[in-house]
């Protein structure tokens, strides 16, 4: 299984990673080698086998819909690159 540079740029865009041309070339090789490695799965017959997503096959535990956390807005804003008036600041989204 191999992918081309265009595929790499498409995946990188989906993953929100800015790649240079040189990066894309390098990842084309390394992604292709990982995809070849995982290709051997296709030769295994898994008809009738249920996928396993949780090793203990637990079902999701539910809790009562009540407030359990106190408001710690300032603590959480302290790690943000940019804030204003108690809000996270990002580049302008709508003109």
């Amino acid at each position, binding site marked *: 299984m191999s992918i081309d540079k265009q595929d790499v740029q498409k995946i990188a865009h989906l993953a929100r990673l800015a790649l240079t041309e040189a990066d894309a070339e390098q990842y084309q090789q390394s992604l292709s080698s990982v995809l070849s490695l995982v290709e051997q799965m296709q030769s295994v017959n898994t008809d009738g086998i249920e996928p396993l997503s949780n090793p203990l096959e*637990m079902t999701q535990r539910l809790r009562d819909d009540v407030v359990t956390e106190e408001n710690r807005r300032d603590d959480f804003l302290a790690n943000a690159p940019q804030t204003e008036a108690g809000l996270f600041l990002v580049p302008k989204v709508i003109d």
Partner: protein
Amino acid sequence: MFDQSISTLAAQLRNKDISSVELTRYFLDRIAKLDPQLNSYITLSEDVALKQAAHADTQIQHGDASLLTGIPIAHKDLFCTAGTLTTCGSKMLNNFIPPYESTVTGRLQNAGAVMLGKTNMDEFAMGSSNENSYYGAVKNPWNLDTVPGGSSGGSAAAVAAGLAIAATGTDTGGSIRQPASFCGITGLKPTYGRVSRFGMIAYASSLDQAGPMAKSAEDCAHIMQAMAGFDDKDSTSSETPNDDYLSNLNAPLTGLKIGLPKEYFGDGLDAGVADVIMAAVKEFEKLGAEVKEISLPNLNLSIPSYYVIAPSEASSNLSRFDGVRFGHRCEDPKDLLDMYMRSRAEGFGQEVQKRIMVGTYALSEGYYDAYYLKAQKIRRLIKQDFTNALQEVDVIMGPVAPTTAFGLGSKTNDPVAMYLEDIYTLSVNLAGIPAMSIPAGFSNNMPVGLQIMGNYFAEAKLLNVAHQYQQNTDWHRQTPDMAKGA
């Protein structure tokens, strides 16, 4: 003093032979002298440590101490520690001060343990050599030209070199066991869900599990006693009651049934490592155990299954690093998309970006069934192999890794070769069972770890098996020469 057991040090603290502040300063001094050779710590938390130690001394004074009170330990730098830098080995988080405490570090703190600092690791726990850290590679204390293993390489090197009594680690595909093997220490990956993942920076949420790394099984049992157990802050935490990890340590091994999977002893296993493992198995026979060959026929499929499931979950988990709420943000973003794309490209290292892309591809439209779903079906086959085998035997033994620690830089250009190194550890995470690595001897002067795997929630059994071996051998008491230099 650096190579004493937790129970010996706890007795010395209670007898006032030494105070926790003295013990903590002693370790901080050792770190200052020796760690420049190893790079096992990313952050030293000297102020926190001395404050905790002073508090521990007061508790001991008042007769209000647990066995861990005043014992200096280290935490892998992916556990959020309130007020102390937590980087996860990444540039992305090189300014991240968590506003809250992980359950694991919080419970150990409540038990009185002193936090010396945060240990180095492969970025976001992705790696088997600790060479993928933004903060530089860690060196193996047994040979400074070799890797300590990964991703909990800093924790393993620090414990092996006597720069902490014990350390926390996490294991998604072998990240506690393989560095424990390479550095000659004891490490336990508990059953999935046994230890809370709350406050652990996520890599692959259906595989991640935290555990103790220490000099001996007994010390690991002390740490487990404090860290394990149900936590309602982790939605996958198990409500199965905790065992007492200490009370069973001395049970005799007479009649213990050990399974040796033939797939663990095939091509690719280094002959020196195989000799050490077989000698260890003989030792168990002397202790009264019975050995039989078993088969885990789908072992080879654990590599492709893991390298789809783990990157897929990582690509989802790591989408939270967007430059908005925490972590690295690029300079002068021209719009929101530019900010996401450049912040992430600048903040993540190569291996992390690669795994995110593998996962993004596997989860993308049209490929989900062929990759993610297929990998999860194979995951069930791997689980069934273990549950079948564990109906016949009590524990499964084999090597942790095909070789001893390899040279720094020797595999960095061939990532697939590095992935193949994980062949003996990945399947345990896919099945979710517990497993340990214990020191079992040396090959070419480098430590070899024996892997002991058990049934779900059989941690107490594994610790008992390991402890009995350690009562009759002294491989776990060996110390690298560099540790004696201070």
